[in-house]
């Protein structure tokens, strides 16, 4: 089971990667909501992030305080090497399945 991640975890990981240097709580939340067109709560998001961090797939650090957010610092996230390996695992699994099921999955009529 090690190395396999859930669908929402994959989504969060990919979003953190796509946001690069700007990956922090609200940014990740809004990006996911915009792309997947679904509402997610801060509680759910941060729970997942905490789990990912526990698994060592991402790491985080506190940024510098700014004038926004009442001077409170943001916590930024970054994917780790293990995170990348986990994403590759998922992708390979999917790619294999895609390859196997090419004919039936074609959208062409």
């Amino acid at each position, binding site marked *: 089971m090690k190395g396999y991640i859930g669908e929402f975890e994959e989504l969060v990981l990919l979003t953190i990667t796509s946001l690069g240097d700007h990956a922090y709580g609200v940014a990740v939340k809004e990006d996911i909501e915009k792309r997947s067109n679904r509402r997610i709560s*801060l509680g759910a998001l*941060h729970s997942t992030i905490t789990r990912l961090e526990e698994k060592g797939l991402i790491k985080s650090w506190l940024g510098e305080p700014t004038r926004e957010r009442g001077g409170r610092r943001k916590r930024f996230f970054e994917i780790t090497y293990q995170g990348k390996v986990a994403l590759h695992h998922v992708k390979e699994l999917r790619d294999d399945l895609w390859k196997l099921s090419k004919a039936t999955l074609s959208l062409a009529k």
Partner: protein
Amino acid sequence: MKRQPTPSPPRLATKLFEWYCGNASVEDLRGDLEELFYSNLESGSFKRAQLKYWQQVLSLLPSYALKKRKRRPGFNPASRSPSPILTHGMVHHYLIVAFRNLRRNGTNSFINITGLSISLACCMLLLLYTKDETTYDRFHEKKDELYQLTVNRVEQSGNGKKFAMAAMIQGPSFKREIPEIEEYVRVRNQQLTIKKANDIFIETVSWVDGNFFSVFTFPLIAGNPKTVLSDIHSIVLSEETARNYFGSIDVMGHTLDIEVDGRFETFSVSGIARNCPQNSSIKFSMVLPFHYMDEVHPDNGWHWVSFPTYFLLQSKANVLAVSSKMARVYETQAKQEIDEMKIMGYGDKFIWGLQPFPTMHLNTEFEGTPEASDPIYAYILSGIALFILIIACINFINLTVAQSIKRGKEIGIRKVIGGQRTQLIGQFLGESFTLCFVAFVLAILLAQSTLPFFNDLANKKLSLSYLLDWKLVTGIIGLLIVTGFAAGFYPALVLSGFNPVTALYNRATSSGKNYLAQSLVVIQFAFAAFLIISTLFIYSQFNFLTKMDLGYNDRNLIEITVGKAIMSKPFSHLLKTGFSNVPGVEVVAPRNVGRFSGPTHANEREIMAVYEHVDEDYLPALQIPLAAGRNFSKDFPADSIHSVMVNESFVKEAGWTDPVGKTVDFMNIPGWGNKKITVVGVVKDYHFESLKEKIKPEVFTYEPKLPLGKFLVRINRFDIPKTLKSLEDTYRKVLPYDPFQYSFKDELNYNAYRTEARWKLIITISSILTIFISCIGLFGLTALSTERRTKEIGIRKILGASATQIVALISQDFVRLILIGFVIATPLVWFAIHAWLQSFAYRVNMELWIFAFAGLLAMLVALLTIGVQALKSALTNPVNSLRSE
């Protein structure tokens, strides 16, 4: 019109969130919440944004993210390792900081550690002393049933003299008549001559009853404790003695020749005993059976008490009942002797009593208790040590607090970056414990290295390993912990309570009036003044005692005591002639050995006078002048029977104005003749005894019946060793087997004040120590006060203050405190010295100038201490002190 308030997240939700999170680190979450709120506010209404805020808060509360962060307060997802309060890194850091602090305040650290270790070392030595004193004789298994026989000899005048001595008869008589007494042990020490092959030794031997080794707990290495002394010619040696004489302890059956009553008898070793513990009142090197004495010198006298007797009572025997039984036994058995004494004019009453064996050591009430010591020594020494320890402790507290004021910034920073109060307390307590530990190790080294000297001072054979029993080890560790705690706790509490803002922005300063420091200085200097004044008085009294004109010349005067001559008159004559012929000898004056007094009638008064039996050479030999009349002389053959001399005190007591030619009714004893004798001369008063005693009325007699056993030999000061050698040769010719024992009279006189000499040393050392510790405390406080006032001093100098003015400025505060201390000490020391001087019949006056001198001395030392620091700061270039902030 009301002003629209800036829209902000609902306060209740924020409060709830904060409360729920506690001290978990959720700064980023709160940031996220707030950011979302404001972005919602832009896209929708205030109400809606508030609602969404609530939703987010509620979604976070039960979430795993928060649970995780709460579980570990101080959880910092950025670092993967948890951060407990004490990590290896922190300890390392604390050590570095502590060490840097020590180095930065080199002098103060030195003061702290030195003060503490000196006082701890003092305490250890004193603990050793007290332990030894209080455990005396506790090692005997039957200690609770053991008693020492005491006697109170009450004179007709009502004055009592108490002895812990008895004659030979009390032990057996009391045991026979009183059922509660199970055993008696007599212990009689005697110096005897011992011959082994051709070597002659002088040894103190103990004649003891056969049950000695079963009543007392003195284990034997060889021999049966019950039978070891049953043979009349048996001898038990201590381990050490056996080694000294035979070089081994395997010497059962070996023999030694011991001279008893002028002839050598052979004793064979029947047992070897372990060396006596240091804390034993009874110490022996050679033990001989007492029943030898019983056979050689049977003595049924009750009143010539000279050595101790011990009783083993039945357990739970009533001591008072036994005492009253002893009184009855004495009255019936000694009746004849009591009556005879009454006829001779001795009406002293003898009251027998019992003293518990384990308590006899710390009791000087009874003369004759071996090694008895005054508990006041232990009290005073412990008091001094305790005081020194307290001073050093308070010094430590004071200096640490004052020093740490400079660490305000450090504390501020620590608090800002999240140092918990417990961490700060831990840090400071840790520092003080570490210092304590270092001081403790130094103290052990110090105590060990000063132990020989201390043993000398205390007249004991102690070693530090003696402290190794669980009670004392716990005691010492307890002392260390209490010291560390007392020294570190206050700073730890005060410092960690600093508000970081105050600590960082306003320079934290100790409040202007530091009562703790001030009262400390006062107490220290009161104590120091007390000891300095005591020292000066003890010195002047001691000087007085040793330098006072004794009324005779004790220089180049040798005292030789001859045991044989007491017994036999021809010996003393032979010796006197022999000694007189030795070149270098000027005069030889024989006299009686002891010093006894009895009732003498003169001018119809009864005078208790000391009898001195001398010959015509006594006064010239001692160079004592006559006040009136003449000396005894060979030209007046009748002198021996019909003449006496008296001293001035006698004349005064008799109330005579013209004493020569008056008669005294001398020696009112049957057999001596109840005779009236004429006074031919009056001797000027001289101090034959120590100056603690008043000069007593004395009667000098030429009476030939009394024995002469002591020779006072006046020699000239040229080639004293040769004279001594010739004296010894002369002596050997007369008495080949007796030890030649002599002493110089001036040394004897000096030795009479051994206790005073010891006190002098003790008080001198303690006052030096106290002054030293007080001064290092003062030194530290001055250093801190000048440092705090660096800028002030700089500005004063710029405005034209001279170095003298600045030194005066810094000194004046301390001078006032020292004066207060001195004022407190003066009346106390006055009482103490007054009480002490009462024990001397002849004493110095309590001169005021000594007080003034002591005050000046203390002040001088203190001013020197302060002055060094003050001058240093006064001479600093103000540019340096003012340049940097």
